[in-house]
C-alpha cells in the first residue's frame, strides 16, 4: 500500500469522526498557542527593555564612586565615599590620555524644592557642564543650555526639564523667569526638549529635572565636605564600538590618579548601558523560560489527549481494523494508518495553534500593554513540536491496533 493511500485513509479516519478530532485538535491548539504567546511575550519584553536602555545612549559609561579602603584596611560600603573629583574629570577630558573619549560630563545631584511665584515643585537638581547635553543626547526646546561662562562665573542660571517647566510656570514662557532653588534665586535660561517618557517617578523621569552649572551647585546648593567632589561622571565614547577602549582608558587613568595598584581595590565603579542590558535581558529570559515551561506542560497534556483519543479510536474501530486485516492489511499498514491519523491531528492542532498565536500577538498587546514578538523560528518550531507530539503519542495506540488478531477484532460485537 502506497504512502499516498495511507495518507488518504488516515485523513478519512480523522474526517469521519469530526467532533472527536476537533476536541483532540483543541488540546494541541491551546498548548501551541500558549507556547507561542508566552515566548513572544518574553521576547517582546526583552526587546522593549533593550530599546529603552539603548535610548539612554549605548556608547555612554557611567563612573560612580565605589567602596574605598581606608589606611587600616577597612573597606567602606559602595557609594559612601566621594572619591571622584573635578580633577578626574579634567584628566578624562584630555584627548591624549583618553583618545577614545568624546565627551565627559561631571554630575552632582540632589533633590531640592523649587519655588516660582506661588508654585512649588520638588525635583532632582543636577549640577553639570555644557557637555551634559551631548553626553545625555538631549536638545534644548526653548532658550539655551548652560555654557562655559556660566560654569566659570558660578552663574545663577537653570535649565528646566519639560515637565518641571510646565509644573512651575503653567503656560507662562519660563525663559527669563526667576526660580528659587532651595532658597537661592536663579534665572531660567532654557527648557529641554521633552523625551516623551511616560515614567511618573521623579527619579527616573528624564523630563522632570533641573540642570544648573556644577560650580554653582557645589558652591551654593549641595554643600558637602569638599567642593571638588562629583557624584557621577558620565563618559561618552567616540562610538559604540570604542566603548571597550574608552572603558579601559578611564579605568586605567582613574586607578593611576587615585594611586591604586590592585584593580580589585578600585574606589570607583564603571558601568555601561551594555551591562545594564545584559542584566535586564537575563532577568527577562529567566521569566520567559519559566512561562514557556508552564506552556510546555499544557502541550504535554494536549499530547496525552491525542494518545487517549487514539486509544479510544482503536477500541471503537476494532471491527474496522479486523476487517481491514481480513482484506489484506498487514500490521505495518495498520500501524502507519493510525500514526498518520495521530500526526494529522497534531499537525492541524499545530497549524491552528500558530494561527491563534498570530491573532493573539496582534490583538493582545492592545489589552495587556506589552509587546509580543513572534519569530518565524518559534512558528516552525511549534509546528515541528506539534507533529512530533502527534507521532510520539500515536506510537502506542498504533502498535496496539497493529497487533490485534483479526479474529478477535472481527468477533467483537
Amino acid at each position: 500500500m502506497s504512502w499516498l493511500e495511507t495518507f488518504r485513509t488516515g485523513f478519512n479516519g480523522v474526517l469521519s469522526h469530526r467532533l472527536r478530532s476537533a476536541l483532540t485538535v483543541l488540546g494541541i491548539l491551546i498548548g501551541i498557542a500558549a507556547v507561542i504567546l508566552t515566548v513572544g511575550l518574553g521576547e517582546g519584553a526583552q526587546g522593549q527593555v533593550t530599546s529603552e536602555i539603548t535610548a539612554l545612549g549605548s556608547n555612554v559609561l557611567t563612573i560612580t564612586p565605589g567602596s574605598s579602603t581606608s589606611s587600616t584596611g577597612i573597606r567602606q560600603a559602595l557609594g559612601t565615599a566621594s572619591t571622584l573629583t573635578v580633577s578626574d574629570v579634567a584628566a578624562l577630558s584630555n584627548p591624549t590620555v583618553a583618545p577614545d573619549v568624546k565627551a565627559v560630563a561631571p554630575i552632582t545631584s540632589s533633590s531640592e524644592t523649587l519655588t516660582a511665584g506661588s508654585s512649588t515643585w520638588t525635583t532632582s537638581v543636577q549640577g553639570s557642564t555644557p557637555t551634559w547635553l551631548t553626553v545625555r543626547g538631549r536638545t534644548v526646546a526653548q532658550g539655551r543650555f548652560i555654557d562655559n561662562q556660566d560654569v566659570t562665573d558660578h552663574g545663577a542660571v537653570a535649565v528646566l526639564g519639560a515637565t518641571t517647566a510646565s509644573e512651575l510656570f503653567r503656560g507662562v514662557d519660563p525663559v527669563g523667569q526667576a526660580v528659587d532653588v532651595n532658597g537661592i534665586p536663579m534665572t531660567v535660561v532654557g527648557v529641554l526638549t521633552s523625551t516623551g517618557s511616560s515614567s511618573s517617578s521623579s527619579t527616573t523621569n528624564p523630563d522632570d529635572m533641573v540642570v544648573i552649572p556644577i560650580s554653582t551647585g557645589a558652591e551654593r546648593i549641595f554643600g558637602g565636605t569638599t567642593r571638588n567632589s562629583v557624584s557621577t561622571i558620565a563618559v561618552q565614547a567616540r562610538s559604540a564600538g570604542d566603548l571597550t577602549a574608552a572603558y579601559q582608558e578611564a579605568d586605567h587613568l582613574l586607578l593611576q590618579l587615585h594611586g591604586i595598584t590592585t584593580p580589585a581595590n578600585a574606589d570607583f565603579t564603571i558601568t555601561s548601558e551594555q551591562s545594564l542590558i545584559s542584566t535586564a535581558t537575563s532577568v527577562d529570559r529567566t521569566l520567559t523560560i519559566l512561562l514557556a515551561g508552564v506552556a510546555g506542560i499544557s502541550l504535554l497534556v494536549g499530547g496525552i489527549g491525542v494518545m487517549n483519543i487514539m486509544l479510544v479510536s482503536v477500541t471503537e474501530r476494532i471491527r474496522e481494523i479486523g476487517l481491514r486485516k481480513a482484506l489484506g492489511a498487514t500490521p505495518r499498514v495498520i500501524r502507519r494508518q493510525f500514526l498518520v491519523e495521530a500526526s494529522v491531528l497534531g499537525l492541524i492542532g499545530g497549524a491552528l495553534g500558530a494561527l491563534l498565536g498570530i491573532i493573539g500577538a496582534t490583538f493582545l498587546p492592545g489589552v495587556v500593554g506589552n509587546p509580543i514578538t513572534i519569530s518565524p523560528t518559534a512558528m516552525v518550531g511549534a509546528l515541528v513540536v506539534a507533529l512530533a507530539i502527534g507521532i510520539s503519542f500515536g506510537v502506542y495506540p498504533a502498535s496496539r491496533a497493529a497487533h490485534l488478531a483479526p479474529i478477535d477484532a472481527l468477533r467483537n460485537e
Partner: protein
Amino acid sequence: MTAPALSAPPPRASAGVVIELERVTKVYRTGSIAVAALRGVSLSISEGEYVAVIGPSGSGKSTLMHILGCLDTPSSGAYHLAGDNVSRMSEADLAEVRNRRIGFVFQQFNLLASMSAWQNVELPLVYAGAPRAERRERAMDALARVGLAGRVHHRPGELSGGQQQRVAVARALVTEPDLILADEPTGNLDSVSAADVLRLMDELHESGRTLVLITHDAEVASASGRVLGIRDGLLTENDERYMESIR
C-alpha cells in the same frame, strides 16, 4: 504497473486442489484449561467446488472457518491453500495470502460506514497496491456483476441489508480470489434477501468459482453441491444423519 493480484496464479503442487487440510487441530488455551476446537480435520476441496460446512454452534465450525480463511493458524497439522503451505506463515505473509487468494463474506456484512459502495469494494485492491483507475474500474465491474450498478455511490447506511450483503460479495470477488469464504451470509437477512444472496452464490459457482459456505441452516447448506457436517471438532462427509435430524 500490473497489480500483484492480477498476475496468473502460481503453479500448484496438485493441480485443481484449492484446499488441502491434513489432520488439522486447534487447541485454545485459557490459563490452565485447554479446549480442543478442532480434533484432527482432514479435508480436500477442488477448484470450482461449492461446499457447505454445517454444524451447530460450538461444533468448531467458526474455528474451521478462521483456519480456512487464514485468519488463524492451526495448532498442528498442515494446511495447503492453492499449493502453498500456509499453516506456518508470519502474520504479514498471511495478510498477503488473504488479500490475494481469499474473498470473505461475513454475517455482519462488515462494510465501512464512512465509505461509498464502490470504495468498500475497492478496499482489497488498495491493499494489493493496484493503481487508482484500475481499482475503480474493477470495483464498478464487480458491483455491476452483483446487480448494484445503480448504487455504486451509496453508503452502506443507504442500502438495504440484502444490498449491503451483495456489496460484500462484490468486495469478495473483486480480487478474483482462489476461494470465496462465506460465514453465515444469510444469517442477518430476511428470506427474500437471503434467497437473493444464495442465488448470487449459485451464479458464482456456475462461473467456476470455488465457494465454501459455513452455516447452521440445513436449507442454506442444501444449495451447495457437497455438504460437510462438523460436530465436536470432527468432520463427517455428507452428514446425512445430521441433515435428517434437523429436517
